[in-house]
């Protein structure tokens, strides 16, 4: 199974290296969304209260994670668009690959790409929104756990609609409600990581992200078999 995982991951990353769809299209899309948030929410608004931070800095964690979610949707769509043509998923099954390995491989490839996107987006958000980073360790853990959660759950749901004409409209409807807890957890943990917010238990929220990831790791490995079996 681990060998199959590795094969799938390497295959998808090789395709990305030659096609550069994620780096040349999805990453600029994410950066654009960050800028558009700035336009939609005036940078001049200031939070009333003791913090006296600009509103955009105050809500930077939420905006960042929303941007990541939208970029992740596109990356997941791309990951399964690769398999849509010529019955590729059937071919993977017939090649004797373990369904759980296919699941983990696709999720791992998207995770690697998404972490790369998030790193650049994170620097972008740091520059554009100007938020400090009080706890870098917590921030790194949050990014990693949230990304794994997003890709594991996302891969499972994207496979439901793989190869269908309605894929582009169906996957967001399926994935976004499921990822609502991840958005919550990642935003809260990032708030603590950036502002050292005393009212927010950042590590507990990171724990929630870890539990979510573990759950979807198990569910995805179990469910991918029935999903890949056509007719």
């Amino acid at each position, binding site marked *: 199974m681990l060998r199959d995982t590795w094969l799938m991951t390497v295959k998808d990353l090789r395709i990305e290296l030659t096609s550069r769809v994620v780096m040349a299209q999805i990453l600029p899309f994410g950066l654009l969304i960050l800028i558009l948030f700035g336009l939609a929410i005036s940078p001049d608004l200031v939070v009333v209260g003791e913090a006296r931070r600009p509103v955009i800095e105050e809500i930077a964690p939420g905006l960042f994670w929303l941007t990541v979610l939208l970029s992740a949707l596109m990356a997941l769509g791309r990951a399964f668009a690769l398999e849509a043509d010529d019955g590729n998923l059937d071919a993977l099954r017939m090649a004797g690959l373990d369904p759980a390995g296919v699941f983990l491989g696709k999720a791992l490839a998207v995770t690697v790409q998404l972490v790369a996107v998030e790193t650049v987006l994170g620097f972008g958000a740091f520059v554009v929104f100007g938020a400090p980073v009080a706890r870098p360790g917590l921030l790194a853990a949050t990014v990693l756990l949230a990304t794994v959660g997003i890709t594991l759950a996302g891969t499972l749901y994207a496979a439901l609609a793989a190869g269908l004409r309605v894929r582009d409209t*169906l996957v967001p409807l399926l994935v976004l409600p499921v990822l609502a807890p991840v958005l919550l957890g990642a935003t809260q943990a990032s708030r603590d990581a950036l502002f050292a917010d005393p009212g927010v238990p950042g590590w507990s929220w990171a724990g929630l992200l870890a539990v979510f990831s573990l759950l979807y790791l198990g*569910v995805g490995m179990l469910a991918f078999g029935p999903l890949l079996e056509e007719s």
Partner: protein
Amino acid sequence: MSTTEAAPTGTDPADEPVAVAPVNPPHTGSVATRRLGLAAIVLLALTLLFALVISPPEANQRDAVRLFYIHLPAIAVMYVAFLITAVGSIMYLRKGSVYWDLLAGAAAELGVLFCSFVLVTGSLWGKPTWGVYWQWDPRLTSTTVLFVMYLGYLAVRRLELPPDVRSRRAAVLGIVSFGNVFIVHYSVQWWRGLHQGQTLGVDTKMDGLMLFSFFIGLVAFLTLAAWLLIHRFRVAWLAREVEQMGLAQALAERRAETDATGLVGRSR
């Protein structure tokens, strides 16, 4: 009913219609469900009577409390329906029986219907109690996410796929969605709990008559739900039969066509 016996002898079997329409068109009612429906109507009328007339206004919420007599039963029906969807999905994956699949689908539609009812009555209750229709109340927020999640499930059930592939995907989704109900609910509750101290509930004391009104509402809604579920299941079953009948008919027509043009067995 045997079609081969009824057909006149000596004709070519290919001329015979493959699917014969029954004399009495099938319908979804039966004696038992008519009685069940009648019981539902009577119980709903009783619910209205107790909720609006007989039960007293509550000390804190006054007349707004009357919404609870339909709001809480709707919540109960919603969770039962989603539970049936999950159980039906598990059984479908284990047994492969189409009955379980149709039951899961029928229950999900019922759940979505009552979920929307829960959201509407909840908002209507929120206006006089909180002053606004929408609050970031944990239950309201998580129920809304739940609503959208099951709309996604219904969308998967309508995918253009071979029936068994579609059923299997829907079954996987039906199981995972039920687990998600808890994750979403728990995380949202935690989020609001941290930020607002506690949920925006209003203390409600229910005395005997109010409890009884609620109980009548619960029985009425469960009866109504059972009636709806049985009929939705039967409609789904008939729709599936028609789909297959249509396929058999199309095959028969094609066969008759090739026979008429005499192309069978001739090389072209």
